[in-house]
């Protein structure tokens, strides 16, 4: 605990007040540690604005959510009408609602870009593993938040989307049907489901999200930010102990971020005011029909931000299972033949692979589709331990890595596009190839990330004054 600090009785009123607070709460200390004396690399580029934009969208969602909750009715008979009431009769209710619905899509957009930044600059690597893990947990919580929030307008897509996704849980052997029943609180999605999803959406998941965001930022400020060169700025400090390539977050990055925020808001408000449905991608047309448990829509598609993972799910057919079994068999064989490890481990791997193959043969493909969808998210958590490249940043990786990352992005978008479309023969094959690439990218990373010669990494960051 700090010493009690006396201040001159002639000091200005503001100084006296600050001194009074600082003796009781570390206000100045916190501001210094996290803002004015938090040194960030000076070579951040445009990729570094999406973290602060995620925080902005989180605040927008919480504030608009509070106002929506004042008028929304979580009741199967009233929910759809209460949303229309907000859109028509609540003063400026339409603006609050469009901010919230557009905010959901904006959230995923900025978070995907933020994660991609981490991927190309190796921001997940030592010593930032925990920052990355907290971030992945935020992504998972965000998906839960968005999924449950989407049920609340109680339109046809809300209803049938929830029905499809909750039914997936029933594919889990033994506990599945009971688990699905527990989630729904009923045998079909109904009033009980709507009430519990509302509760999760407005309080449970947001609490978790906020806690994780705080942990994400604390972890980041402990280790300091990475940068596009992947150079540790703390390795080169001046005589005063401050990194030579570091600049105080405040004011340099605060003014930077205010500019980024104003440009972001132009795009965000343009969508809200001129295209709030965004051609059916942000607000699906079918969701303007009230939920009808007796009428299944011809084509059920999740909102765009879930579609890459939805394609990972749909790609796993009983046919695809043979390809996956072959992958497991070949992987285990290579490990046993090529791997340098004790015989005991090799035996364990071979035995494990046999058990997995037996399970893959005996359990329905639908379950493995669920595993594929969940695994697509969970695999991100392991990234810090999958990457064996000698350098962090894409700038100094072997050139061919760039093409691989480019294909990864294109593949992800194609998976997303296919998830919005009704199933088709060609689409099915493309999504299966895309699924294999998606998992191959991560699971083979320990091997491919070592191949090739990285370029020399400079000692200091590269920066040209604006």
């Amino acid at each position, binding site marked *: 605990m700090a010493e009690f600090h006396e201040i001159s009785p002639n000091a200005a009123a503001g100084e006296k007040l600050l001194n009074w607070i600082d003796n009781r709460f570390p206000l100045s200390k916190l501001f210094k540690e996290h803002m004015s004396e938090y040194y960030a690399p000076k070579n951040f580029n445009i990729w570094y604005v999406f973290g602060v934009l995620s925080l902005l969208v989180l605040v927008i969602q919480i504030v608009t959510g509070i106002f929506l909750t004042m008028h929304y009715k979580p009741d199967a008979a009233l929910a759809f009408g209460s949303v229309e009431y907000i859109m028509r009769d609540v003063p400026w209710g339409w603006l609050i609602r469009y901010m919230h619905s557009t905010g959901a899509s904006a959230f995923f957009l900025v978070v995907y870009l933020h994660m991609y930044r981490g991927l190309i600059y190796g921001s997940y690597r030592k010593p930032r593993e925990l920052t990355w893990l907290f971030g992945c947990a935020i992504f998972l919580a965000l998906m839960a938040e968005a999924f449950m929030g989407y049920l609340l307008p109680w339109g046809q897509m809300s209803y049938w989307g929830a029905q499809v996704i909750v039914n997936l849980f029933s594919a889990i052997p033994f506990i599945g049907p009971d688990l699905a029943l527990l989630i729904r609180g009923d045998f079909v999605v109904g009033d009980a489901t709507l009430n519990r999803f509302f509760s999760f959406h407005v309080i449970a998941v947001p609490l978790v999200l906020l806690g994780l965001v705080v942990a994400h930022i604390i972890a980041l400020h402990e280790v300091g930010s990475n940068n596009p060169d992947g150079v540790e700025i703390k390795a080169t400090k001046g005589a005063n102990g401050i990194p030579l390539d570091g600049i105080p977050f405040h004011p340099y990055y605060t*003014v930077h971020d205010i*500019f980024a925020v104003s440009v972001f808001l*132009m795009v965000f408000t343009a969508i809200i005011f001129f295209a709030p449905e965004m051609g*059916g991608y942000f607000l699906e047309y079918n969701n303007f029909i009230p939920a009808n448990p007796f009428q299944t829509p011809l084509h059920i598609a999740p909102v765009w931000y879930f579609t890459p993972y939805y394609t990972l799910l749909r790609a796993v057919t009983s046919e695809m299972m043979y390809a996956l079994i072959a992958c497991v068999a070949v992987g285990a064989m290579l490990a046993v033949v090529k791997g340098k490890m004790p015989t005991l481990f090799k035996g364990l791997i071979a035995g494990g692979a046999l058990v997995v193959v037996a399970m893959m043969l005996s359990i329905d493909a639908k379950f493995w589709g669920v595993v594929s969808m969940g695994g697509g998210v969970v695999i991100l958590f392991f990234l810090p331990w999958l990457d064996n490249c000698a350098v962090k940043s894409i700038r100094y990786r072997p050139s061919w890595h760039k093409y691989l990352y480019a294909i990864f992005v294109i593949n992800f978008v194609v998976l997303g596009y296919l998830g919005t479309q009704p199933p088709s023969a060609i689409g099915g094959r493309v999504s299966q190839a895309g699924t294999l690439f998606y998992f191959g990218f991560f699971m083979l990373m320990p091997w491919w990330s070592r191949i090739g010669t990285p370029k020399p990494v400079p000692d200091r960051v590269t920066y040209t004054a604006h």
Partner: protein
Amino acid sequence: MKTMGFTQKIILGLLLALGLAGAAQANVGGPAWDKAPNKTNDMGALQNGAKVFVNYCLNCHSAAYMRYNRLTDIGLTEQQIKDNLLVTNTKIGDTMTAAIDPQQAKAWFGVNPPDLTVIARSRAGAGGSGADYLYTYMRSFYKDETKPTGWNNLLFPNVAMPHALWQLQGERRPIFEALTEHGNVVQVFKGWEQIKPGSMTTQQYDQTIGDLVSYLQWMGEPVQNTRVRVGIWVLLFLGVFSVLTWRLNAAYWKDIK
């Protein structure tokens, strides 16, 4: 600059991939939707549409989230609404409820006539806007004695709804031409033939439907024109604000070497 080049390559690749995917999906079945005239800014057309809606649609269809007094937004006074559009026992602040008893409706048509408040928003799709769909739908009825109601619809085959506006449009018959495609004979829709005239000419009828559909589109989101108007001011403000924050940023960053 190296990284920018990398990003640009990715964006180019994305556009290419999406272009290919889009081309593969371009062929979709079903009759093409006609383009509806957009008159959501035309008060006269909207008022006429409201009149047609109240006189013809509201007998069976509700607009349960639409209040009568919201019609002041399309230039009607409360007195005009009371005198011309309100049915007995309804108040100006009430929502638009159908005269028909839902149970009877179900017995007569097999389904409950859907609520029309946001029908125009819900019917948008790959073929066009919801207004386009409704504009085509309301002009695609034809006489079909094999159906319980005596009516069928080219856009919505076996539709439960009879042609509510038949007195205006009269009776029509679709003309098909048999074409051979890949060795199969297919019936291709060629146009309409008027069998019995209605009280309106085709041109007048199309214009009335255009007004009605514009009204439905407006009713789906009564705030839509206000929204765009406010949006322009918000963007103008943010444009100026961005210039200021851009210069503020530059003023601070000129110190960083």
